[in-house]
């Protein structure tokens, strides 16, 4: 299950380690960390957002271990993908390292490539791909598309988006 978690760190060295240790102990897979260095809570702590993949039964233990390390857990929620989009890419899709692009989208934590179909008719011929992306919200979906757009522009791929999605 994918979890998003807001935690607070004290403004002293070594805190991040204390936060990450319990994750590996509980076999949670960290997907993203968003660190707000500039921000401070009224308690003068630093807010950090984590997105992680974990088994539901390990979640309580994870929270307990974090609290035991002095990390405040403010909010825990299941990350739900509410938005979904299919995109067709045409061009020399393969040679351009489609995997890189997928990894970049997956690493955002808020979006994920859930499906990929590829067709390569011949070496000199343009290939076509259909990519399905899920994201937690509309804004996040646009951010994931921005990554795809950047890659398409660089590699001269034609990107075909559904109607109704801002191009």
């Amino acid at each position, binding site marked *: 299950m994918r979890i998003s978690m807001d935690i607070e760190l004290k403004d002293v060295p070594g805190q991040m380690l204390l936060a990450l240790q319990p994750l590996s102990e509980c076999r949670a897979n960290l997907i993203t960390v968003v660190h707000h260095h500039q921000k401070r809570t009224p308690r003068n702590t630093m807010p950090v957002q984590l997105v992680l993949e974990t088994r539901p039964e390990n979640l309580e233990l994870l929270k307990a271990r974090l609290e035991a390390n002095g990390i405040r857990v403010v909010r825990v929620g299941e990350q739900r993908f509410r938005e979904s989009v*299919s995109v067709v890419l*045409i061009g020399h899709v393969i040679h351009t390292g489609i995997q890189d692009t997928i990894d970049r989208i997956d690493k955002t934590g808020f979006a994920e490539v859930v499906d990929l179909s590829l067709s390569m008719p011949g070496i000199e011929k343009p290939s076509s791909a259909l990519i399905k992306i899920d994201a937690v919200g509309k804004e996040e979906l646009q951010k994931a598309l921005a990554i795809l757009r950047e890659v398409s522009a660089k590699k001269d791929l034609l990107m075909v988006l559904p*109607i109704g999605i801002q191009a």
Partner: protein
Amino acid sequence: MKTIRTSIIGFGAIGQGVAEVLLLKKEYLRSLGLEVRVVAVADSKGATFNPNGVDLAKCLVRKRETGTVALEKLSGLELIKRLDHELVIETTPTNIETGGVGLQNMRAAFETGKDVVTSNKGPLTLKYGELQEAAKAAGSKFRFEASVGGAMPIINLVNEVLAGNEVKGIKGILNGTCNYILSRMLEEKASYKDILAESMELGIAETDPSYDVEGIDTACKLVILANALFGLDATYNDVEVTGITKITPDALEMAQENGYVIKLIGEVSRKGLQVAPRLVPIKHPLAVGGTLNVASVDTELAGEITVTGKGAGPIETASAILSDLISIYREC
């Protein structure tokens, strides 16, 4: 009975279609209290004119048999300037670089206080604001339903039937050739090149198809819609354009497996004007096939309204010209 003296400037596919429709609808027009008297017909080689009305049936035969309607070495432009009449039906070729002779014809018509009904996109794409101003200053009527989507009613639909509604956006398939090519590529699992060749053979694509397949024609129509329905003064350069030449049969098939068709969609909204291949859900009203045109208007009060129809063809396009003519003269 109100007599409307009119000229037909440009006597190709559309000009002749107009002549045929006027002959066919003579009695009907009379029943509306309208006597449409064509006093001049011009093509690129010259013209024929008669203040009491030319014989349209003879014009059609002469054009077919000799290649020109001309009996006099007079240009359409001169006739617009010199001959007394109320309406200019302007059906000369579209030129989007200079506006062509169409632009001169329209300017001359307004300068001499005439109304204009046209199917010619060039002047509308380049000089919309100027032409509207000129028409207004002259107290002339200016109608161009036929320039977008042929028989498909869109401009008059929004400006008249849906009057009072603010238009939030318009999107649609505005080029029958591109629609045909994409539809056939999917059906035959054939390459863009093969289907383009087929379309040329059938006369659906022109010998130089770039104007259609590069999305330029769609962009011009989008500009006209943006100006006429959105109150903009946009030109071709304001449109971001991508055509269909890179679309592969594989892409079409993959899209289909996932519930989509790929269509060349023109879209105008407050965010701008754009022409690009888009994924359209198979059951969406915009997913029409063949050479059909379709447009969906997002309106403030009436919601989404979709119209579809034949985007080209002499009689179909002449039908839009006829409806413009009737709506000008019936109302006043």
